[in-house]
């Protein structure tokens, strides 16, 4: 019984995650279109639902071209790294009681580690392309993701202190008394902002800023290798939304509906929120991004950490 579940759950999670990543391509284009008074893709299949399939077929049949000036092995490896790291991070997300791939006691650290490793993909992709724009994109990505990693980790520590564990299942169970978004409000805001920066989504998409860097670190990529970067990005959105739900919004907890449904609904709302932010906010300048991170977010995250610690020590 246990061994069967040990096979079914990882495969189920993998299939679900990849399907969601494909569906997100459609969802994002439709929602962005609605927020820009358009319809978006609505021709392929019912409501355009088969659009991701058409896109995938197109990407598969595109020429898989490696520029002659690129560092070939690294160039091919880079898009694979990001997909692997974000899918690996899903291993520790508890979808419902019992539905978790590995119930690690350092689940949160594993997530942070995997999202740090994801930086390599962008940096190596930018460096191995051997072109100016890619290199600049990779450079920006490394600085941005490394610095926002810091605030992300610090903001999460408040949750760890309140739950008394790095295990994500135990963190969710600790929220039965009350979800952590209210006591950890500052931490939640910082985690959402840092999560946005980690996934390189639009307000923080400086590594690929179209208007300045062509396409940033993936300027030289084409075909399915280009597609893998996008799959990585969309799984990354799902991952960060799932983490927000797990850490601050009670994971699978909720009345009436089954746990998996609650988890899916909450994650879906946060994914839509990410797309809304993309539709609404402009991209900051690079120095604004850096000074915003180090001068505003870092002190707030530290303050959140200290206040939480002080309250916990005085209270119990």
């Amino acid at each position, binding site marked *: 019984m246990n061994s069967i579940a040990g096979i079914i759950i990882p495969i189920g999670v993998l299939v679900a995650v990849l399907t969601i990543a494909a569906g997100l391509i459609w969802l994002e284009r439709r929602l962005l279109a*609605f*927020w*820009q*008074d*358009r*319809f978006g893709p609505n021709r392929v299949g019912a409501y355009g639902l088969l659009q991701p399939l058409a896109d995938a077929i197109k990407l598969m049949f595109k020429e898989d071209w490696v520029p002659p000036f690129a560092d070939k092995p690294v160039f091919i490896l880079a898009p694979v790294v990001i997909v692997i790291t974000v899918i690996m991070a899903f291993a520790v997300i508890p979808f419902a009681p019992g539905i978790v791939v590995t119930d690690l006691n350092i689940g949160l650290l594993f997530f942070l580690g995997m999202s740090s490793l994801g930086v390599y993909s962008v940096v190596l992709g930018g460096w191995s392309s051997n072109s100016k724009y890619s290199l600049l994109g990779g450079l920006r990505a490394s600085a941005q993701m490394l610095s926002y990693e810091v605030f992300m980790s610090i903001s999460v520590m408040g949750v760890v202190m309140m739950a008394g564990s790095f295990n994500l299942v135990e963190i969710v169970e600790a929220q039965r008394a009350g979800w952590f978004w209210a006591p950890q409000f500052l931490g939640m805001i910082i985690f959402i902002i840092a999560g946005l920066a980690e996934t390189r989504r639009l307000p923080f998409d400086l590594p690929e800023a179209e208007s300045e860097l062509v396409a940033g670190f993936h300027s030289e990529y084409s075909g399915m290798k280009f597609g893998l970067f996008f799959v990585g990005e969309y799984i990354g959105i799902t991952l960060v939304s799932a983490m927000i739900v797990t850490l601050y919004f009670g994971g699978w907890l909720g009345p009436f509906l089954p746990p998996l449904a609650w988890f899916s609904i909450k994650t879906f709302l946060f994914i839509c929120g990410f797309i*809304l*932010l993309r*539709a*609404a*906010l402009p991209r900051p300048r690079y120095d604004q991004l850096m000074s915003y991170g180090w001068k505003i977010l870092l002190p707030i995250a530290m303050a959140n950490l200290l206040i939480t610690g002080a309250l916990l020590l005085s209270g119990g």
Partner: protein
Amino acid sequence: MLGTLKSIWNVFLHLWHRKETVQYPEEKPYLPPRWRGRIILSRDPDGGERCVACYLCAVACPVDCIALQAAEDEHGRRYPEFFRINFSRCIFCGFCEDACPTYAIQLTPDFEMAEYRRENLVYEKDDLLISGPGKYSGYNYYRVAGLSISGKSKGDADNERPPVDTRSLMP
């Protein structure tokens, strides 16, 4: 900070705004009556070709997409032996319509001319000629012009006085 939240909220409200998109094949866009689309050759109310093959349209055309050859029939009416418009070159500027002295060449509100083969965009006279008078329903060039053709000699046209006898002294 508040401004940022407000702009996020305002963008969210756009979910219920009217969509600007025109769902084209199902929903046709409004074309103004003076829309410059597919070019046609019209006929006069009596059914004769209006075009007198004066070449003015071909001269006016900035992209040289009109080709024709003048000819004359047994009644003395000039007509184009062939009339060819290459729509892969045409820029729909309407200069040919402006240049035409007989209202023969006209632009219509029709733009659905896409083809899979480029050669199919070259329209011959059969493709261009329509059976009606187009925009100017009552106009017949030979009835208002002083030119004599068989069945209508000088002085017979509308609003035309008989030709002056230059050898007579009478006013």
